């Protein structure tokens, strides 16, 4: 089984990570040698042209995962690769193929927008100066303003312009929409979609705005309590994932985990809801048709809420 999976994986996939675990030492208590796990055994392969949405609640480990994938953070266990190169030792050539919009945007705060973009652009052979000018104009940002004087939304836009101007083959965005208004957000989504359609750009995007992902993502992964708990092709979500509702007092329902179970919630009235998954083309376990058990399709938002609660 594993051999088959590996045979399909091309060695220079835009993103690959094998069993990454990341722990931080607890610093709050002096002399405490215990540590806190931020990522637990995360494996992921992202094929070229995928628009992958990473969802998870605050503190689930999304930013740490992105930083580990890009080699900005060293995992305690496991390894990450970008275009087949170990993320911790990326060549300049590989770096030039990546556009990254981080969550913290405090670099170069003293510089003027135009100067910063000029400075950064010199490091990228494919830098698209025309795109930079058009985008600044479209988003009403004067190149003469200092980065420190911009609003959070404007700084986020500048970071997005900067990441897109390198004509990246891999675009990584960490909560890009957090400071954007709905119009700017739609603009960004359209730009992402246009890049994916025209150049097959691979996009890795973390967000908790589920409706955005429902539009643009081809695949969704879900980080919960530091583990990847859901990995689904969005077009097949209705086919591969479902919610089971077990009425109160259904005796026949097993207390143990059932095949494909992702989450289980117990409600005050004695009923239970579960999220279960199957691979495309296979059957649900028999228990779904037992009396007192109901199977419903669920959309991404439902899935998020069921699993993350």
């Amino acid at each position, binding site marked *: 089984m594993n051999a088959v999976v590996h045979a399909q994986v091309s060695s220079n996939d835009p993103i690959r990570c094998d069993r990454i675990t990341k722990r931080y030492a607890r610093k709050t208590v002096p002399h405490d040698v215990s540590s806190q796990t931020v990522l637990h055994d995360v494996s992921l392969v992202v094929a070229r042209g995928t628009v992958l949405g990473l969802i998870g609640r605050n503190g689930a480990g999304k930013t740490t995962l992105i930083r580990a994938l890009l080699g900005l953070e060293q995992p305690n266990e496991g390894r990450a690769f970008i275009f087949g190169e170990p993320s911790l030792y990326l060549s300049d050539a590989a770096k030039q193929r990546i556009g990254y919009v981080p969550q913290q945007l405090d670099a170069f705060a003293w510089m003027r927008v135009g100067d910063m973009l000029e400075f950064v652009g010199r490091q990228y052979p494919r830098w698209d100066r025309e795109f930079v000018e058009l985008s600044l104009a479209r988003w009403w940002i004067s190149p003469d303003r200092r980065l420190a004087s911009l609003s959070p939304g404007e700084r986020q836009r500048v970071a997005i312009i900067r990441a897109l101007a390198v004509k990246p083959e891999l675009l990584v965005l960490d909560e890009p929409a957090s400071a954007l208004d709905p119009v700017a957000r739609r603009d960004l989504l359209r730009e992402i*979609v*246009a890049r*994916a*359609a025209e150049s097959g750009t691979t996009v890795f995007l973390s967000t908790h705005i589920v*409706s955005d992902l*429902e*539009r643009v*993502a081809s695949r969704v992964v879900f980080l919960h309590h530091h583990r990847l708990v859901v990995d689904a092709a969005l*077009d097949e979500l209705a086919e591969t994932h479902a919610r089971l509702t077990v009425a109160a007092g259904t005796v026949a329902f097993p207390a143990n985990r059932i095949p494909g179970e992702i989450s289980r919630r117990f409600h005050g009235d004695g009923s239970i809801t579960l999220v279960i998954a199957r691979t495309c083309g296979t059957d649900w376990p028999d228990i779904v048709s037992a009396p007192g058990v109901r199977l419903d399709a669920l*959309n991404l938002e439902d899935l998020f809420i069921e699993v993350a609660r």
Partner: protein
Amino acid sequence: MNILRMNADRLTILPGAPEPIYRQIGSQLRRLISSGQLPPGEELPSVRDVAVQHAINPMTVSRAYCQLEAEGLLTRLRGRGMVVAQGGRCVLPTEQRLARLQSELAEVARQARELNLPAHLVVQRLKSLLEDSE
């Protein structure tokens, strides 16, 4: 020659709906074709245009197009993209088109009964919705 090209904004995309987006596109196109509103030879908007217009994933759009191509409703023309297939299926009679709404109408009727709404009010509201979009 006058080439007709459908506008990407004629499609309606509902991201949160239970029906996946590729199926939403497929069923809308099927309806437009079976009613003759998209006549044979009419060009479909490019995958890119639909994707950018609605901010949706391009693979979702091409998946819908491919499915309709496999059904014989669309033909891929070199250099022109997808067009509505010639003579594949002529315009369906009213009765058959109405039959395609049967389950949706039955669902509306069921919910209307649950809400204890008089039939004439529901029909009136439906009528005004139908006239609105014309």
